[in-house]
């Protein structure tokens, strides 16, 4: 008889049960160590390590993200991993007056899903067609319940769950994953729109969780009242940090938020809607919000009546003891707000400016109650929406659509830096005016988009030696096969012709390679083509690249190219007017560029496009202007400080803000910039590489050791943003 592994159960004597009172057992605590990047308060970043404590042993790969762990069960009937759209209401409303009257077929449904979602997968377009225009639009704008995410949960490259609140870049992956797996695509698109509208960047927000919370705010209120949304965004912790709402006291108002709430969020610049005085008064109305600072950054955001300016403020001619809620209300009640709102929301969906009767219609529709959904539905049903020319998709939208089409889920961290190179790192818009939807493409971003598609195709290839691959595949068959893998996107005729031509050209190259025959020592059973007319050719072929058809197929090649021509790559949906050299506002001017080198080719002396004719024909000895741009409006009085001027010390009473050094130049200016480069009167500088007096070149410093491996690699590849690429500074004492 086997010996039982456990002793038999004994009856428990209730009286003898040990009592823990007085000698309580110490509870075991499990600790998880993490790190994250936090601003060090000096414009730089530092690594902050901190510890999670768990009071129960965490399961392997436990979820550290916000909220509940997303469920992984797939919905029945999903195609290629992408969820089915929400079922539409049984009875849809009648077609409103002024709506699109044309046929609502597959092309229209595809456009609706591309602009109000992330593209059509499987039978989604057909499902929308059967609902008709009104039903189709309402199935997107009136989703029921919370969104269902179907398919596998996102992971990093090692298969671990992502940590959106903690790991750098995982916040981007978290949102991208929602775009790929949600069954309420329009909610994600609207959240993205309001993320762009109330553009807030992690660059000045201390915790990633606060950015995620803000995006959830947009998700939950994206169809409701704009006034409610505006108010919620105004006191959102991320926004309070980003636009200094938490540093706006009655003693010294900070005008940052007051300006942007009117210029960018509700009224628009250069429309005569507000004056500089209105900005100052609004800043006073907004005073009172503050927070505490701790190891994890900013927390405990609250309204402190003692910090609020209770005096009378006059905004747009209305006087009263306004607070932050009034500040938002006054903007929304402003007669110029409805037209601003309608035109701005319109611009996300239609590449033509809003004008004429449509403008009046949308403006008055909105002005009745500041509700977002009716305006949105009206836009999505408007004839312009279906008849306007294509728009360029934002990179993240394009990637999400690509992944949905391929049935891929988030399994790599590469997406966040690839999207960054393509010009759209989520939670990090370039500045408070958001991304410029007119300027998604330049040589840098086009390259990134190409690379994104190439990366997305990883692991998805045709097995050239497999049984299901026909060795007699024709160019036409290869193209059909490649297009089928992209869900047979609508292709323009000229694109199809070029792709077919590519297939034929590559076929002839492949055949030529086959005819060269295999290398000596190759597998003998591979069929040898007899047609080798040049003796001794075998010995000349020493490079492996001359072997036959090394693992690549026409289908595979065409798949990349079809992505280019059809739905994947150059984002042919979307598209907008050219950037012109004129009429750029300061925001427009700034909004592009990830802060990297940009060069203009060509000038009057060179034929209009040296760029297009190439280097060889370019002039070699032209003058060059290198323009270094201080982003954000540099404080000129700190660059060249009028030290000793009594007015200066009066306006800058705090010593930390005042330059102290006496000027070397005549005229009483302390040249902060010039002093770095030596002084007037230094000896001529024609030294051959040695350091010169006045030079303050620092020797290269070693990279900070606590850069995590991922960032170290990216730094080596030159792909790290400025702030992260710099070595970490020594901690300064306050």
């Amino acid at each position, binding site marked *: 008889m086997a010996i039982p592994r456990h002793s038999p159960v004994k009856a428990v004597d209730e009286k003898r049960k040990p009592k823990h009172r007085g000698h309580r057992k110490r509870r075991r605590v499990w600790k998880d160590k993490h790190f994250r990047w936090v601003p060090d308060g000096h414009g730089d970043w530092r690594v902050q390590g901190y510890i999670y404590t768990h009071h129960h042993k965490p399961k392997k790969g436990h979820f550290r993200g916000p909220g509940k762990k997303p469920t992984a069960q797939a919905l029945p009937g999903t195609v290629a991993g992408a969820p089915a759209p929400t079922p539409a209401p049984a009875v849809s409303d009648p077609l409103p007056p002024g709506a699109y009257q044309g046929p609502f077929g597959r092309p229209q449904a595809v456009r609706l899903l591309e602009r109000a979602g992330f593209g059509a997968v499987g039978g989604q377009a057909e499902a929308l067609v059967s609902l008709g225009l009104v039903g189709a639009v309402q199935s997107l704008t009136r989703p029921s319940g919370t969104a269902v995410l179907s398919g596998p949960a996102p992971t990093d490259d090692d298969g671990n769950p992502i940590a959106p609140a903690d790991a750098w870049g995982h916040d981007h992956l978290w949102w991208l994953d929602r775009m790929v797996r949600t069954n309420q695509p329009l909610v994600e698109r609207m959240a993205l729109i309001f993320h762009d509208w109330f553009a807030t960047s992690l660059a000045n927000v201390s915790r990633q969780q606060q950015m995620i919370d803000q995006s959830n705010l947009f998700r939950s209120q994206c169809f409701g009242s704009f006034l409610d949304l505006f108010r919620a965004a105004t006191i959102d912790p991320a926004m309070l940090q980003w636009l200094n709402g938490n540093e706006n006291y009655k003693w010294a108002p900070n005008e940052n938020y007051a300006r942007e709430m009117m210029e960018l969020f509700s009224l628009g610049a250069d429309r005569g809607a507000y004056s500089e005085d209105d900005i100052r008064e609004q800043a006073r109305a907004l005073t009172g919000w503050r927070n505490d600072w701790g190891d994890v950054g900013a927390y405990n955001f609250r309204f402190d009546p003692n910090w609020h300016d209770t005096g009378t403020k006059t905004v747009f001619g209305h006087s009263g003891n306004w607070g932050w809620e009034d500040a938002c209300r006054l903007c929304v009640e402003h007669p110029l707000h409805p037209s601003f709102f309608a035109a701005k929301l319109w611009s996300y969906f239609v590449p033509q400016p809003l004008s004429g009767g449509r403008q009046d219609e949308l403006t008055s529709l909105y002005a009745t109650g500041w509700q977002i959904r009716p305006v949105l539905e009206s836009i999505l049903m408007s004839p312009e929406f279906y008849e306007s020319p294509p728009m360029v998709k934002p990179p993240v939208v394009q990637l999400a659509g690509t992944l949905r089409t391929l049935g891929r889920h988030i399994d790599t961290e590469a997406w966040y830096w690839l999207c960054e190179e393509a010009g759209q790192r989520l939670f990090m818009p370039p500045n408070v005016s958001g991304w410029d939807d007119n300027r998604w493409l330049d040589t840098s971003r086009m*390259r990134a988009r190409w690379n994104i598609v190439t990366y997305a195709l990883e692991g998805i290839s045709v097995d050239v030696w497999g049984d299901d691959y026909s060795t007699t595949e024709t160019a036409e068959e290869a193209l059909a096969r490649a297009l089928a893998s992209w869900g047979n996107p609508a292709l323009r005729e000229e694109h199809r012709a070029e792709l077919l031509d590519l297939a034929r050209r590559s076929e002839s190259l492949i055949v030529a390679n086959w005819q060269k025959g295999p290398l000596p020592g190759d597998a003998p059973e591979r069929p040898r083509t007899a047609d080798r007319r040049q003796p001794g050719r075998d010995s000349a072929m020493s490079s492996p690249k001359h072997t036959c058809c090394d693992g690549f197929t026409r289908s595979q090649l065409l798949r990349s190219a079809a992505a280019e021509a059809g739905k994947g790559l150059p984002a042919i949906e979307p598209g907008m007017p050219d950037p012109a050299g004129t009429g750029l506002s300061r925001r427009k001017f700034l909004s592009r560029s990830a802060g990297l080198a940009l060069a203009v080719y060509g000038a009057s002396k060179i034929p209009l496009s040296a760029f297009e004719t190439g280097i060889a024909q370019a002039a070699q000895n032209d003058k060059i202007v290198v323009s270094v741009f201080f982003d954000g409006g540099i404080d000129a009085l700190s660059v060249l400080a009028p030290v000793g001027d009594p007015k200066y010390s009066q306006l800058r009473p705090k010593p930390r803000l005042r330059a102290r050094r006496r000027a070397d130049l005549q005229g009483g200016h302390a040249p902060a910039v010039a002093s770095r480069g030596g002084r007037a009167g230094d000896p001529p500088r024609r030294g051959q590489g040695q350091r010169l007096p006045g030079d303050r070149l620092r020797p290269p410093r070693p990279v900070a050791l606590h850069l995590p491996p991922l960032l170290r690699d990216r730094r080596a590849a030159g792909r790290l943003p400025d702030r992260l690429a710099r070595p970490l500074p020594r901690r300064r004492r306050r």
Partner: protein
Amino acid sequence: MIATAEKPVAAIDSVDGYDLWSRVGDPVEGEMFRSFAKFGTLPSDSPGMAQVRRATYQTDKLRQDLAGVGDFTSPVPYPDTYFAHKLAGLAAYINFGLPLRVVTIRAAGGYDTHADQAADLQSNLRDTCDGILAFQRDLEQRGLADRVLIELWSEFGRRPEENGSLGTDHGAAGCARPVLVKP
């Protein structure tokens, strides 16, 4: 981003290379990029499509132009910042003979100093100025300094009065400074 009415603009992410990834082998890769370039030359019927076409064509052109630049070395030491690294690459590009006329580059850090201005401005300006100094020395070493004018500018200014959070708010006047070096 610099925008021009008619001149094409080339933008690059990094000075360390401009490569388009590819999953196909040597004999056919060239054909694929030839088709890529062809897409850029097809006629376009809308502004959006024109934008895609132009970017496609220029991307392929730039890919070919920059293929020969490769790795670079600098004759002078540069500070170990990413901004300085970009300038080092730029000097090498100019030396290589790319048909550059105007180059814009973003200074290290940000300058919208609504709060805690003193610390931010000091470290960012230091990184920028150290980088530019090294760049100037590099150009002198390569004998290119006479061809290059460096200009520093900002898009707007800040008010003389400080605000309550050790910073300054937006103002009207700004500053621009060309770097002039005595021979």
